[in-house]
């Protein structure tokens, strides 16, 4: 078979393969993509590069006066339902920022004060169960976490965009934070994500049993 025949065969087979994926759909809305680009531009304006994590933290802290800040009346922010509000908390360990379209951008550099992070996310309209070092999941129906959480590529931390409005009523995110190991070498934080019905019994294999 010459190259033309082989290419024709490839075209036929791969097109069939792609067409068989008709159930696969991209969950993100265009607004989320545009908000992500906007956030990136804003970070660029602040002089934050991927290699400048320390600088990034310093800038974030100086912009917020060295403390966390949360506000519910950001100019241009859409009105939020169910008591959530626009949140802007930037700490050395983690950041939570609500974009104008309501998507909540989270960056975790170090899992310190998980209770504070849980509360901040709840304030932003994202109920979560946050665990460290182990992953919890429910044996119940699996919900589509990929339609709610989109992981953001980038170095220097765990970054994700969460769309609270895409969460079905009565659900919560289950986030397990752990440490990424590459070839046995520690390489920063990573997470496993699940979307569960609130109150679902969770299996948490690996969780220390002491102090239960």
């Amino acid at each position: 078979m010459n190259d033309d025949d082989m290419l024709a065969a490839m075209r036929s087979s791969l097109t069939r393969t792609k067409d068989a994926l008709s159930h696969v759909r991209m969950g993100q809305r265009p607004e989320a993509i545009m908000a992500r680009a906007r956030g990136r531009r804003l970070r660029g304006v602040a002089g934050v590069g991927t290699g400048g994590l320390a600088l990034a933290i310093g800038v974030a802290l100086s912009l917020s006066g060295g403390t966390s800040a949360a506000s519910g009346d950001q100019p241009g922010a859409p009105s939020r339902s169910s008591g959530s509000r626009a949140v802007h908390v930037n700490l050395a360990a983690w950041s939570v920022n609500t974009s104008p379209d309501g998507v909540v951008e989270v960056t975790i550099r170090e899992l310190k004060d998980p209770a504070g992070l849980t509360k901040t996310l709840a304030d932003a309209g994202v109920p979560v169960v946050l665990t460290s070092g182990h992953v919890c999941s429910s044996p119940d129906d699996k919900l589509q976490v990929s339609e709610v959480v989109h992981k953001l590529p980038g170095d220097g931390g765990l970054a994700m965009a969460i769309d609270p409005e895409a969460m079905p009523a009565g659900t919560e995110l289950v986030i397990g934070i752990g440490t990424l190991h590459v070839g046995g070498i520690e390489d920063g934080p990573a997470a496993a994500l699940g979307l569960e019905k609130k109150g679902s019994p969770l299996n948490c294999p690996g969780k220390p049993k002491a102090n239960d």
Partner: protein
Amino acid sequence: MRNWGVEQRGREFSTFYTASKDDCLRIVLVNVGDRQLAEDLVAEAFTRAWTSWRKVREHPVPRAWVVRTALNAHVSWWRRRRRELTVDDPTAFTGLEDSHLAHSADVDLDQALVAALRRLPLRQREVITLRVFFDLDTDATAKLLGISPGTVGAHLHRALATLRAQTHSFSDQEVTS
């Protein structure tokens, strides 16, 4: 006037995104075989497309630009995450991932061919993807990849030789299909 221009571009991009996103995702998924990774890559590519929308909207095949950008997207952090233990219990982590491609019964893959495609070097995979899914000719492929038509031909030839060698049974039966 300026706001109108911004809104117009936003509408344009939204229309393009809505019409293209699923197709781009499926093409990238065929290439990488992991649903979540494919979504990450395509989201990243569309983000870059919006950032460079003035340029991308003028591109002869904007979807091909997006797919090529997705395949190139440097997501080393997340890609490494997939290969290694992410948390203390990797089996639990696997349970939370959804990989429709790996588990769907209705996807009738020519698995040998797709697996062979995924093992190709990136540049060869790009050439195959652009030629197969977008029907670009050698010149258009060369222009999009920023390489010479001769180099495209060389990559294509090597890729097809590899695929041919790795999928004997496919080669034998395809002519009749």
